[in-house]
């Protein structure tokens, strides 16, 4: 049983087992993705085959053209860009001063705000969307992108506050004290000392808010009515329903396109995301 050789064999066996397990995970994670992209590039003839293949034998961009013809994809992508972009910028602009105050000035109100961030995660959307729907209807903001931006701003605020608090904590108080000693006022300190140091965190929070809003479906489904106002995720569901085998191509093509912006941003903020999520959780 003992001896260096058997130990080494056991180690090697363990390693092999680990690689096999990792491979199984990779297959589970990757196979739907491969299938989606492969379907997007298949010709109608190939989609109709009874023995489907993993790799398109004759890759074509036909599905992408068909997808653009079938639904107003460009317009909905524009809507999504506008809504997600404005919601992210507004939410972060509102959250920066608040996050700063919540970190540097502990009081009952800032504690309550932190509590609310956590509690708001618990509530089912129905309880929020019905009153919001009625409220926005009163204000004639149903079926308007501005109304959706408003909802997304509020939707993004809790997490933005959470992430930004973590980044504010990382800014040394001594720097601010030094600025105060040098005679800088409060606003001056905020703008020229704290803000520059916060920039990487700001960018990460912006990107995360953008992705959240870009991916969002439920609020857009409830609040938007007319076809020309729909966002990307709602338009995608228009492809569903009576899908013949041939329509699968354009569906896959549109779905692939809709993922690109989120993937891009996620790739950029990969590292920051993890630290950001945990940063808010670290004790202050």
């Amino acid at each position: 049983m003992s001896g260096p050789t058997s130990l080494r064999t056991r180690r090697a066996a363990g390693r092999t087992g680990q690689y096999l397990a990792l491979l199984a995970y990779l297959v589970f994670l990757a196979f739907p993705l491969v299938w989606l992209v492969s379907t997007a590039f298949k010709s109608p003839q190939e989609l109709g085959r009874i023995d489907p293949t993993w790799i398109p034998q004759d890759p074509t961009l036909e599905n992408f053209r068909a997808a653009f013809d079938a639904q107003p994809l460009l317009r909905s992508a524009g809507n999504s860009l506008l809504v997600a972009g404005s919601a992210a910028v507004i939410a972060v602009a509102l959250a920066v001063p608040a996050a700063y105050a919540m970190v540097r000035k502990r009081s009952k109100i800032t504690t309550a705000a932190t509590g609310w961030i956590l509690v708001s995660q618990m509530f089912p959307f129905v309880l929020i969307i019905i009153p919001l729907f009625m409220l926005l209807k009163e204000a004639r903001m149903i079926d308007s992108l501005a109304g959706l931006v408003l909802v997304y701003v509020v939707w993004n605020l809790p997490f933005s506050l959470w992430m930004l608090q973590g980044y504010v904590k990382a800014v040394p108080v001594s720097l601010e004290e030094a600025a105060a000693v040098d005679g800088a006022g409060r606003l001056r300190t905020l703008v020229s000392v704290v803000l520059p140091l916060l920039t990487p965190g700001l960018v990460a929070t912006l990107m995360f808010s953008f992705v959240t809003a870009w991916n969002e479906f439920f609020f857009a489904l409830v609040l938007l009515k007319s076809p020309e106002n729909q966002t990307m995720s709602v338009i995608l569901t228009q492809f569903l329903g009576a899908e013949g085998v041939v329509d699968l191509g354009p569906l896959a093509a549109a779905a692939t396109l809709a993922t690109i912006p989120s993937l891009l941003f996620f790739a950029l903020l990969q590292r920051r995301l993890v630290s950001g999520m945990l940063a808010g959780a670290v004790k202050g």
Partner: protein
Amino acid sequence: MSVAAPPPKAAGRGTPPPRTARARKAALGLDGGTWFLLLPALIPILVLSVGPLLYGVSLAFTDAQAGRTEPTEFVGLANLADLRHDTLFWESFRIGLVWAVSVTALQFVLALGLALLLNQNLRFRWFARTLALVPWAMPEVVVGIMWRLVYHQDAGILNETLSRLHLIDDNVGWLTSLSLALPAVIAVGVWAGLPQTTVVLLAGLQNVPYELKEAAALDGAGLWRRFTTVTWPAIKPVVIAITALNFIWNFNSFSLVFVLTQGGPGGETRLPMLFAYEEAFAYGQYGYAAAMGLAMIAVIAVFLTLFLRRRLKEEAS
């Protein structure tokens, strides 16, 4: 107006300065400048989140409906009493619980396995880490569409693969079969939620002190013993937090299943949120839908109490 004034309760900074009027005010609440910083975020939260939520809760006790001309009336507990006799609602809740518990449990087990692997010094680890993040970035609608393609009865890769391996004879309608739809949907839920849980657990694992593991190994502790005595206690707080959050998110989830099955076949995958959505926006029964929302909160509250209390007791003993 010094920003750097220590907070009133800061300890270890010598004797506190004598309290001025402003300091007293700051101890109670906040000074004007801080209000100025907080208000831009507080107002939208109050107006569009706290307010509507309270209003939504109050709607549960009214007969609010869409497009009604006469004023809404207070009906007390009538909606909740109706819910008690609504068999469809109970069925939906049962499905919701099965879904939330299975997805949360599977997510945790699979994510822990993946996180442990990614924490090892394996080749291609960077590739696995990158790939593991992709489902997180994808819009839920796209995840739903993608799996519809995978599950497609005639042109789906799942049926094709299984029949090539001679595991099935006829093509299976994964999302249309009464018995298979819920498990099929749960698998998608696990796939979609795996990355976030993995990332959080991985971060927890990386905080486990290496010296402790090494010391345990030197003392002759095997792999399993090292895990139970060193790793598990260290990551337990993270595990509890992410599991509780996952359960809440899963129980409240909507988009994924809406795209996959719209609650079908025969209501077999109609999660509570889908039911409430139909009630509110297909039938316009706002009051009744709000009562369902309340019931959902009750379920979550009960779960959290049971879950966290057991954990706290374990912690204490």
